């Protein structure tokens, strides 16, 4: 079973040389720490920045330079600044190669819910609806089950949707799964020490698993 950093580490293996990547808040942010050496990747922050760097050193924070999570950050050489309309323009026109974000629920047809829980104070969808509707390639980083032990990979989402038919890959503490175009979660890899049976028990949506599902390598 993976911890949050393990999930981030596994997702980082999906990032290829030359990718422009948008990382959501939470586990996705951790992915930046595991981008393989020698791979050139540019991180987008949807408030209006390409070429996001690490957090600043103490005392070097700039109130005018923040990311989409409102954290103080830095820029890397070759970065560019633009307004929020152009930022979502490049998202809609699919110039961003990969979007990584969290989810509360994902359904077996690729729907995602991650912005609203009925009865709770709703803070808003921010850029999530734009990102999931437009991205050509989305990986969801999430826990397989919620705190009550209930599966978050469902036949159909129960929460209000963020986007429909858009998720293609999911990485959880238990597994890597593809969402099939015809519907269903195909088990691609097991987390170290986790059995297919356990993953099946933790997955309420339809799970498709081959006889021999490899264990993931984080190297």
């Amino acid at each position: 079973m993976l911890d949050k950093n393990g999930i981030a580490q596994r997702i980082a293996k999906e990032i290829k040389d030359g990718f422009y990547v948008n990382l959501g808040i939470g586990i996705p942010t951790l992915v930046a720490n595991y981008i393989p050496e020698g791979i050139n990747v540019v991180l987008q922050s949807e408030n209006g920045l390409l070429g996001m760097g690490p957090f600043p050193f103490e005392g070097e924070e700039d109130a005018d330079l923040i990311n989409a999570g409102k954290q103080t950050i830095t820029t890397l050489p070759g970065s560019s600044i633009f307004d929020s309309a152009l930022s979502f323009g490049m998202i809609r026109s699919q110039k961003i190669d990969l979007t990584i974000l969290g989810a509360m629920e994902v359904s077996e047809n690729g729907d995602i819910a991650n912005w609203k829980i009925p009865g709770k104070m709703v803070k808003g969808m921010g850029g999530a609806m734009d990102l999931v509707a437009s991205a050509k390639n989305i990986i969801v980083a999430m826990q397989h089950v919620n705190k009550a032990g209930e599966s978050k990979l469902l036949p159909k989402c129960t929460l209000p949707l963020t986007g429909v038919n858009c998720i293609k890959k999911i990485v959880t503490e238990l597994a890597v799964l593809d969402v099939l175009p015809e519907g269903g979660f195909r088990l691609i890899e097991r987390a170290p020490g986790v059995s297919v049976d356990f993953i099946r028990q933790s997955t309420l949506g339809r799970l498709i698993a081959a006889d021999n599902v490899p264990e993931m390598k984080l190297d």
Partner: protein
Amino acid sequence: MINKVVSGAEEAIKDIENGHTLMLGGFGLCGIPENCIAALVKNGVKDLTCISNNAGVDDFGIGLMLQQRQVRKMISSYVGENAEFERQLLSGELEVELIPQGTLATRCMAAGYGMPAIFTPAGVGTEVAEGKEVRNFNGKDYLMEYAFEADFAIVKAWKGDTAGNLIFRSTSRNFNPVMAMAGKVTIAEVEELVEAGALDPDHIHTPGVFVHRIFQGADYEKRIEQRTVRTKG
């Protein structure tokens, strides 16, 4: 050149009336028009509809106007951590319309570009799509969303000149340029106001034609919402 300079925030906002719709630039607390917000709080105008990506925090930004109950409706993509906001929302004093961040930015831009409506896939199949026209282009569904107009757009820039030209600094640019284009009246406060001719025409982010009033603001606090640092070594 046409001179857009006014004496300060009080003069700039003096004809904003109860019930008006305002756009306020900024993302979180970054690039918000601090001086104009302070003047609005002082002036006490009420029943405002505010179009702004966020709603500030309890004691800064639009949160200050919420404390004075000057806002009737917020149109935002994310209303963040704001206890007074939550209280007013739950009590029914405040109305909120949540819309996707890209849709918000693009609807402002559409007004500035004279486009009455735009198409975006954001929100298709979700509750955001309710009551909206869905249209398929090349096999993909899009929502038709209308241009946003505001009685006043209030933006914050880094530098500006007397002709109303604006230059923004780093990610404090965010929503400011698109809102500057969308106001029936656009007010710009800047950290440094210079004479027309002092800015390189190639560096200008918002041409002065979009800006009706400009002044040099004072005492910018530029509060940081999430101070995140790494340690050396």
